[in-house]
């Protein structure tokens, strides 16, 4: 991969995106637009940690779909490196997308219950790099990744339903890491997990960052988690980006409605608990 513009990995220019609404019956071929995101400008630089926060329904998931090349925006352009991905055919697009590691939201629905963990982990290698990789190399790669995310090797032979929520999330992270991504996209990585496991995952993500320094794009509605993982924060409200900046600055001087609410609640919290940590 030749990088002509090393300063960013992902760049969104004036993206307006949304869905086509399908009416029932034979008219289903005539569709109307429903806009979810308006004029989004965003860039993710190398080794940067960004959190996208917003209340539920504010368009966070749609933004992810746009970045992942799954939803063509109505207008605007999406660059990954210098490629405008929606100008490329699907096959070419996928080749570029391999540099993005995606960890979906719900670990209970994101693993195919019919496949063993080792087959799940091999999958990204199969299509992307299979020609260059030998069977033994794939195997050792998978093993090392499993070790990296802190799972025992016996997990490889197990089916997802034998794993707990935390282990599943680790498997998903491992799967995202297999193709050695430059960007790691995390969609609510802890919302389906318990507190005791949540911390494990947060630490794991931080460890991975320390080790490989990938750019991290975290999508969450929980500011406390964003604060533990990200440096920069982007707030989406009412289809638009309303606030952007370093997380500490934003917390101390919130501008948007969402942030004001969130910060006031955390201040109360701090006062009421009177906890010293």
């Amino acid at each position, binding site marked *: 991969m030749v990088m002509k513009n090393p300063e960013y990995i992902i760049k969104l220019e004036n993206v307006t995106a949304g869905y086509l609404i399908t009416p029932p019956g034979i008219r289903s071929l005539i569709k109307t637009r429903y806009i979810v995101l308006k004029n989004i400008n965003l860039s993710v630089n190398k080794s940067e940690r960004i959190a996208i926060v917003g209340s539920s329904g504010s368009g966070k998931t749609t933004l992810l779909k746009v970045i992942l090349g799954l939803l063509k925006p109505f207008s605007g352009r999406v660059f990954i490196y210098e490629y405008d991905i929606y100008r490329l055919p699907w096959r070419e697009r996928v080749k570029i997308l391999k540099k993005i590691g995606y960890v979906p939201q719900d670990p209970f629905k994101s693993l195919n219950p019919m496949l063993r963990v080792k087959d799940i982990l091999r999958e990204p290698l199969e299509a992307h790099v299979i020609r260059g990789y030998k069977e033994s190399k794939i195997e050792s790669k998978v093993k090392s990744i499993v070790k990296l995310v802190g799972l025992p090797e016996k997990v490889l032979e197990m089916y997802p339903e034998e794993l707990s929520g935390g282990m599943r999330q680790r498997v998903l992270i491992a799967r995202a890491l297999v193709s050695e991504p430059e960007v790691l996209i995390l969609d609510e990585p802890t919302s389906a997990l318990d507190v005791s496991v949540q911390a494990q995952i947060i630490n794991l993500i931080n460890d991975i960052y320390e080790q490989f320094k990938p750019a991290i794009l975290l999508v969450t509605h929980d*500011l406390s988690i964003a604060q533990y993982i990200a440096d920069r924060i982007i707030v989406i409200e009412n289809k638009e980006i309303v606030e952007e900046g370093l997380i500490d600055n934003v917390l101390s001087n919130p501008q948007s409605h969402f942030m004001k609410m969130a910060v006031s609640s955390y201040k109360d919290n701090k006062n009421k608990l009177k*906890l010293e940590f």
Partner: protein
Amino acid sequence: MVLAIVMENLKVGYIIEDEVFWAVKGVDLVVEEGTTLCIIGESGCGKSTLASAITGILPPYALTDGKLKLFDHVVINGQLRNYNGIRGKITAYIPQNPGTSLNPFLTVEEHFYYVLRSNFKSDREFSKKIAMEILPKVNLDSSVLEKYPHELSGGMQQRVIIALALATNAQILVADEPTSFIDAHLRLQIIELLGRLQREFKKTLIVITHDLLTTSTICDYIAIMYAGKIMEVGPREKVLRNPRHPYTKMLLETTPILGVKKRLKPIPGEPPSLGKEYQACLFLDRCPYKSKECYSDPQIQVIENSHFSKCWKALEAPWL
């Protein structure tokens, strides 16, 4: 001092394919009238089953053992269950997911009408009057009466549900994860609302949650539940400041707090699977302070007045 809830070795379980799974494995708990108790635990620790047992919405095929008393009604006595005159009149339930708990074909006013009719055989006028009285208390104006659930936001739906629970004037309110379907920044509002209502109406409030910090701001007592048993009970301040069970301590250290940036200390391992019977301490596998005596089921240790812990080392507390 009146005891609102008394549990004596309460067990609740289900039969799944001829095998008995006890979700609640023997709980002893006493709740005074007019106090707030938070039951905190991870998913699958049996806290929702406990809530169902208190409110009387256990499925008919559930198994029970032990004793549950609500005021002077014995509700569960061994395998016998008698919830006559309890549901709605003594206990009220605030469900987890407000979106699916309201009938999409009924307006808010009709919800009030049906709830009150089934409890008091009242007419529409009366139910409307009651609704008008209660809605301001939950920070809603009377215009929502004519609306259907989908026209309300998530927070408003949750408040309607709380209002419905208040409408029947039940003494015990049980809120099952009242904030888990609400965005993080709105959670505190709902929790505060619940706390205010509890104080105002002098209700006994049971909040079931896994969110230790946000929720516990309103409670008088905290009970830490783990794998079907209560690990530690005590007044809020004491449990949070002076945890006498390693699990409580570790939970506190693992929870991210906004504005406080420190490295989180996760609890190693996973909770034990539901249904298995253990002779040893349930927390044994994940406990860094385990020793020989931990291989037998720990007795309840009294730390001080109304602060109990189920750990052999509660008194020494090497983690403090």
